């Protein structure tokens, strides 16, 4: 695992890092903060699922901090601390915006406030941790740090990309409506289309490090090594998100698979395009 150089610390830098993280949380979570379905889910969603979301998201945040993070880290303890910091900051950002939007106020029961903030915190925390990556091009304070890329790292970033775009779409009613409107043949075509677009991204964007796509490489090599695992990651992330948001409840196996395929379309693009923004 790559170790990044430690930069001189100080109150000014800490404030800039926090400000950047808050900006990232805002940019990434705003579409969800302004989505009615997520406000509603905040009070009716099974608390066990919300707890599962938080518990499963935390290791992802730690790994994300290790890969990117809003400050240079050299130890796992720093990554854990940064993940808590990202969650805390996201909690504050979400609470402020939900209060400004009138979604929560002093009359809202505490349990409902917790639910509404908790469901928004994860995408916001991902945004906070990605802030360094997203805004680093406009920051002149330090040169971009070269990181050692690994195959596992590429798949992990694909998962983050899939989760991020999937998180934006999964809570909406539209995924379910589309899955009800289409037939199994449409779903089959959607799988092919998702994989084709993903592969286009893999070739267009190129993947760094050990998984680099070279011009000499036959098309099927990155297709097997990157595109297919990427689609499975996007499909799994979609199924996970649909379960978290109670969208699979009462569905038949075919219905759940078709809904996951519909959601896997944006998730697959998020997975393949992750390299563009991360």
């Amino acid at each position, binding site marked *: 695992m790559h170790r990044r150089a430690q930069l001189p610390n100080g109150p000014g830098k800490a404030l800039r890092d926090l400000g950047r993280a808050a900006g990232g949380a805002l940019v990434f979570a705003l579409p969800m903060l302004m989505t009615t379905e997520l406000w509603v889910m905040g009070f009716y969603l099974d608390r066990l699922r919300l707890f599962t979301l938080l518990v499963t998201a935390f290791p992802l945040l730690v790994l994300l901090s290790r890969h990117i993070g809003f400050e240079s880290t050299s130890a796992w303890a720093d990554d854990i601390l940064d993940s808590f910091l990202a969650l805390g900051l996201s909690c504050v950002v979400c609470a402020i915006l939900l209060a400004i939007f009138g979604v929560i106020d002093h009359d809202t029961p505490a349990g409902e406030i917790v639910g509404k903030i908790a469901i928004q915190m994860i995408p916001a925390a991902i945004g906070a941790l990605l802030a360094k990556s997203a805004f680093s091009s406009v920051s002149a304070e330090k040169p971009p740090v070269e990181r050692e890329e690994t195959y596992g790292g590429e798949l992990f970033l694909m998962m983050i990309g899939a989760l991020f775009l999937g998180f934006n779409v999964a809570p909406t009613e539209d995924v379910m409506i589309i899955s*009800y409107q289409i037939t199994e043949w449409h779903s089959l075509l959607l799988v092919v289309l998702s*994989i084709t677009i993903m592969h286009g991204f893999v070739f267009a964007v190129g993947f760094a*490090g050990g998984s680099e796509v070279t011009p000499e490489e036959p098309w099927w090599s990155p297709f097997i090594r990157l595109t297919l695992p990427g689609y499975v990651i996007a499909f799994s992330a979609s199924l996970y998100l649909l379960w978290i948001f109670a969208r699979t409840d009462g*569905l038949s196996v075919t219905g759940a698979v078709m809904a996951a395929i519909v959601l896997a379309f944006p998730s697959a693009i998020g997975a393949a395009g992750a390299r563009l923004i991360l």
Partner: protein
Amino acid sequence: MTSNASDKKSPIEWVIGGLSGVVVLAIMLFLATQAIFSASGRPVLSISVEQVERAGQGSIVGIKVVNAGKEAASDISVSATAAEPGAGTKRLEFGYLGSGSEQRGAFVFETPVDPRRLKVQVDGYLQP
């Protein structure tokens, strides 16, 4: 796992890629099988009373609506009529119900109702 940009790829990349290929093929085969062997047709909706609970002066009638058909239904309207004087008819609407799916809901009556004299039915639906 490779750590530099060499042409030689790590075996783990091929193993993960191969397993992913199997998963994708399984998903596609499953969908193709469903598409070929599942006959198309209208939604087949049924409603059943799951439980009747006393709630204050009235009753809450828990129901389950199942779509056993091969097509999804939307705007599903269901009703419950109680025989007790003054209880009347209560109506509910479900947004969507996919093929093979089920959804639960409840009718709220202001008076106690006898489940044996309660009539529940699906009044209508749209095909999305």
